[in-house]
């Protein structure tokens, strides 16, 4: 009984918990008191206008920046002590496609975190890389240079790399940017497959069309506008708040405060 109880309570720990996170650059807040939690196995979209702080949120979750206030918990621990728990899929534009590297080498990089500074890949690592390539249907291309791939194939390679990290949580930065409908469909299928297998996926998404394919949506504009099932979150009221809301006036006021001296008293 005790064992069962423990297991259940362990399952109650959210995959990701963000507790009142505020991040400021040069005293200008980018995220204000962001607070939400995501349960294990969810496929979640993070949506918001440009400058809403989506990538800052990703960076905080990845432990790349320390919040000015608040904290991030990955499976109940802070990101620094739980590095291998989060896998990151970068935007296609952030990748150097001329780098001398083959498809299977990119996927093998997913194992580096487990190998440490001086470890060498073992047979089990190579087998895992093979399986990951197989999952995204890229086995036939494993010795190709990454430049010799189509846009959709390039995306799949980086999904395979995240898979090879064997992390319970995946963060994806705009995985659908610049792909055709066919590729988008394939990526959605893979993401759903990962989430069914128990992984938690947090996807920064720019498109408001395909919202119903996610378990829940986090509407962000500096702070959390709404978070929950698509039907309750993506309402005209919330969208207006997120895309044309009060934040714009706050920004304007802050810009004035920063640039012009105050008039009178």
């Amino acid at each position: 009984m005790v064992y069962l109880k423990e297991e259940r309570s362990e399952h109650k720990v959210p995959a990701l918990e963000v507790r009142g996170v505020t991040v400021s650059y040069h005293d200008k807040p980018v995220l204000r008191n962001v607070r939400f939690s995501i349960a294990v196995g969810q496929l979640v979209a993070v949506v918001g206008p440009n400058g809403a702080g989506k990538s800052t949120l990703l960076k905080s979750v990845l432990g790349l920046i320390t919040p000015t206030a608040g904290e991030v918990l990955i499976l109940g621990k802070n990101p620094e002590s739980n590095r291998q728990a989060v896998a990151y899929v970068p935007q296609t534009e952030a990748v150097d496609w001329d780098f001398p590297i083959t498809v299977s080498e990119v996927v093998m990089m997913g194992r580096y975190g487990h190998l440490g500074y001086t470890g060498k890949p073992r047979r089990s690592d190579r087998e895992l890389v093979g399986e990951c390539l197989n999952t995204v249907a890229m086995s036939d291309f494993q010795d190709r240079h990454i430049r010799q791939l189509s846009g959709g194939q390039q995306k799949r390679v980086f999904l395979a790399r995240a898979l090879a990290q064997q992390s319970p949580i995946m963060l994806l930065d705009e995985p659908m940017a610049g792909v055709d409908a066919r590729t988008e469909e394939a990526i959605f299928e893979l993401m759903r497959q990962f989430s069914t297998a128990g992984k938690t996926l947090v996807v920064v998404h720019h498109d408001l069309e395909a919202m119903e394919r996610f378990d829940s949506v986090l509407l962000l504009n500096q702070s959390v506008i709404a978070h929950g099932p698509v039907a309750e979150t993506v309402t005209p009221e919330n969208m207006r708040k997120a895309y044309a809301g009060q934040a714009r006036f706050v920004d304007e006021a802050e810009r004035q405060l920063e640039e012009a001296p105050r008039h009178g008293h």
Partner: protein
Amino acid sequence: MDTSVFALAATDAISWHERLAMPFVYYWQPLVGSVLIGAILGVLGCFVILRRMALIGDAISHAVLPGVVVAFLLVSTGITGLFLGALVAGILTAVGINVVSRFSRVKEDAAVGIVFTAMFALGVIMISWLPAGTHFDMKCFLFGDPLAVQREDLLSIIVIAPIVLGLIFLLFRPLKLLSFDPVMASTMGFNTTFLHYLLMILLAGTVVAALRSVGVIMAVAMLITPAAVGYQLTNRLQIMVGIAAVTGAVSAFVGMFLAFQVDCPPGPAMVLVATVLFGGAMVFAPERGVLAERRRRRQVHEHIVEEDILKALVRSVKEERASVAELVNLVAEGAAKVVQQAITRLSREGYVVYEEGWCRLTRAGRERGTSLVRAHRLWETYLAEQNIADPELHQMAERLEHAHELAPILDDALGYPEIDPHGETIPRAGDLEITDRPRDAH
């Protein structure tokens, strides 16, 4: 004789002209030293150019000057002091560049310019503070003098080579990850700051060891050029590093050898050999070379001319045969000679029979020609759906039809249309005949 690295009193007495009169093997110490330096700089250079830090490499190399001078003032002799001085100066430069680009508005390239010129200027002023009687050879600092490499320099190179190469071998994967995807490296818990400064330290150390041999300016060349040769020739980092090391070593060896043959200073000769090797890689590289690119383009052009001929033959009414002159007229992109060559290839491959100036399609040729017409009309249908109108419509289809492996996918996506936007029948896959209505527009 002064023991300092740059007080070249002893060697100044005889110029390199006179020294070159000695037999080549007499200078085995400089030779071994330069070859090793060439190899290490080549290996380090791979990470420098992949991280787009060529400018920082340049900066670190120049900025070791004040460090070297301070070390000289404090300890005056001994290679260890020089190394420490150079390392401190190198780290200060790297940190300084970071601080300036982070806390000011200027971007990194400008920050590099600000910091390293300041360090260099500081070094030049410090030279003037050196006690009377010491001679600091600025020319040697900048341009090196391989023939002046002595036992002590060789020893320092022999000590530093295994340290640099060993660390790079040991940390190869984290360094590769840092160069390819620094964000991922940090998210995985690698200390990217440590790895970055480690590279800078190895660079500063190697530059000090290389000073006597190639000097600062040549060190930068030997850092970048051999690595660029590797980058041009391969798609694998391991192989790139190997090629860079070999190119660096070969450039040093051949440069030294040529210097003796044609009587010129050896340092610049080494750099020029590396430059020639890079030029060769740029032109002749199997995949990324200029020639390979031109060959690829020519093949595409030839392919297009061949297919245009087949299409013209399929559509010509007179029993699917045409004279060469007619074909030259019909094939827009082909000069007479190009068309003639294309016909020769087509007949060799069994698509046409060519007799006495006349071309006739074989069954295989008719099949291929029909599939081209099909691809062309499918593309026209597709482009019309994208709201593209004539004449662009026809011109684009004229080019895109050569990507005919896409035809089935296109057909599927369009829902198997039978008629193209010009009202012409789209032949089915495998059809041998096309039913052409008289066209008024084209």
